[in-house]
């Protein structure tokens, strides 16, 4: 019941990201999504709660809910970009594409032969939808910060998938994935700052004409 609620909220936050026009609001939404997903394995395995799940939840919540937003807000502040998202695809069109992707995810999720230990039938569809929404955010937005956010949503989708498919992911693997995401966001935050200092803007559609 609680996992269903969290997964529906994750779907809604993805749709909100597709329709959001403010970078700051988008960063907060991704942070909220990270916190909810950090709590997911604890709620899914509430009867057999071990130190493993508790440590993982604490780590995920701290990293995705506190460290990533802090890094991204810092990049946003220092790069002094305007706070608009500047989409290639308009917000309303993005939401409609998102709904189509959601329908496709549910259609596909019902047919994939991955009936392992998943605690909720919503898990696979919402994981697929997070992956698709993250990919779409990377492709359809101009701002570099927004592409970091798209990457994080994509990672959240894969994480959701992992919670459902594998009962006992090795602790080391999960920590490794978290560390990878951390390094990626860290590097991208620094890269955004430096690109901005050299070129006065961080619009990726102009990066094909780089001359130092």
């Amino acid at each position: 019941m609680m996992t269903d609620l969290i997964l529906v909220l994750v779907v809604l936050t993805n749709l909100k990201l597709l329709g959001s026009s403010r970078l700051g609001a988008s960063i907060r939404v991704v942070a909220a999504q990270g916190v909810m997903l950090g709590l997911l394995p604890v709620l899914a395995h509430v009867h057999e709660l071990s130190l493993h799940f508790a440590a993982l939840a604490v780590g995920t919540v701290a990293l995705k809910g506190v460290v990533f937003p802090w890094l991204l807000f810092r990049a946003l502040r220092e790069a002094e970009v305007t706070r608009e998202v500047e989409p290639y695809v308009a917000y309303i069109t993005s939401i409609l594409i998102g709904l189509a992707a959601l329908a496709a995810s549910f259609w596909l999720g019902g047919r994939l032969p991955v009936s392992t230990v998943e605690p909720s039938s919503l898990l696979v569809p919402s994981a697929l939808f997070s992956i698709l929404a993250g990919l779409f955010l990377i492709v359809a937005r101009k701002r570099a910060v927004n592409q970091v956010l798209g990457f994080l949503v994509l990672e959240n989708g894969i994480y959701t998938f992992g919670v459902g498919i594998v009962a006992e992911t090795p602790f080391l693997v999960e920590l490794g994935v978290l560390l990878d995401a951390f390094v990626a966001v860290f590097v991208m935050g620094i890269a955004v700052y430096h690109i901005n200092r050299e070129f006065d803007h961080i619009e990726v559609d102009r990066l094909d004409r780089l001359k130092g």
Partner: protein
Amino acid sequence: MNALSFIPLLLALILSPLLFGVINRTKALFAGRRGQPLLQTYYDLWKLLRKGAVYSRTTTWIFRAGPMVGLAAAWVAATLVPLGNFPALIAFPADFLLFAGLLGLMRFFTVVAALDTGSSFEGMGASREVFFSALTEPALFVVLATLARQTGQLSLSTMFEPVSGADWLHGGPVLALVIIALMIVLLAENARIPVDDPNTHLELTMIHEVMVLDHSGPDFAFILYAAALKLWMLGALVLSMVLPSSGGNPWLSLALVSGGMFGLAVVIGVIESVMARLRLLVVPQLLIGAGAVATVALILTLR
């Protein structure tokens, strides 16, 4: 059909103007004013009915027919709407299509009457009304489709039966999404604050008020009364989703629905007090958002 079936209709006809009074009182309380009397809408209606109507020489019969058709459509639609535990006076399969159609007819005649005056401001209001309603109607239909799918029923009276605790445990997310979408539809359809400010009288930003500027006397009373009925009907649909079942006791149901309805009016008043009206460019995003929320609910029921 028994005597209880007349209760939703009678309550709607008698109490609907009181909703505006409760909303205004709530807003006044937030603003630190005493506010107008609770029965102010009744006084307004009585005053307007005793006045004469003024008609411009450029208008035709369409302008005179607009308010009457609007009120007639609202009356007929009120017979189809259930209220909490009380079923509607008239219920048949797919009556929600007739309900949406009657609301559409009411809007169509308000719009053509506004265009009939030839005023450019009323044309602007009419254009916005038609644009926004083209976005709220899909949301309303997706909500109705979700409920039809969830309950397996095709009539408003059975689709909107009171929900129990077991329903919330079983399909809580769907119910919550449907209630959110329906609430946005209610605010948009009745020109309440995130979409339109009922108090503003600046023609450049108004939607509903600007279309009825040229109506006077009894015609304007009809429009006011029809607007109150529309708010009551959509409110009754939202309320029927929220209220618990009363277990067949008519007096308890009566207390629940009248208390719930004025609780809903207080909620609308609070929303209007704490929120600003959205920019006109952002309103379509809100309405598409309502449609998206309803679609998520529909997809959740379809799986």
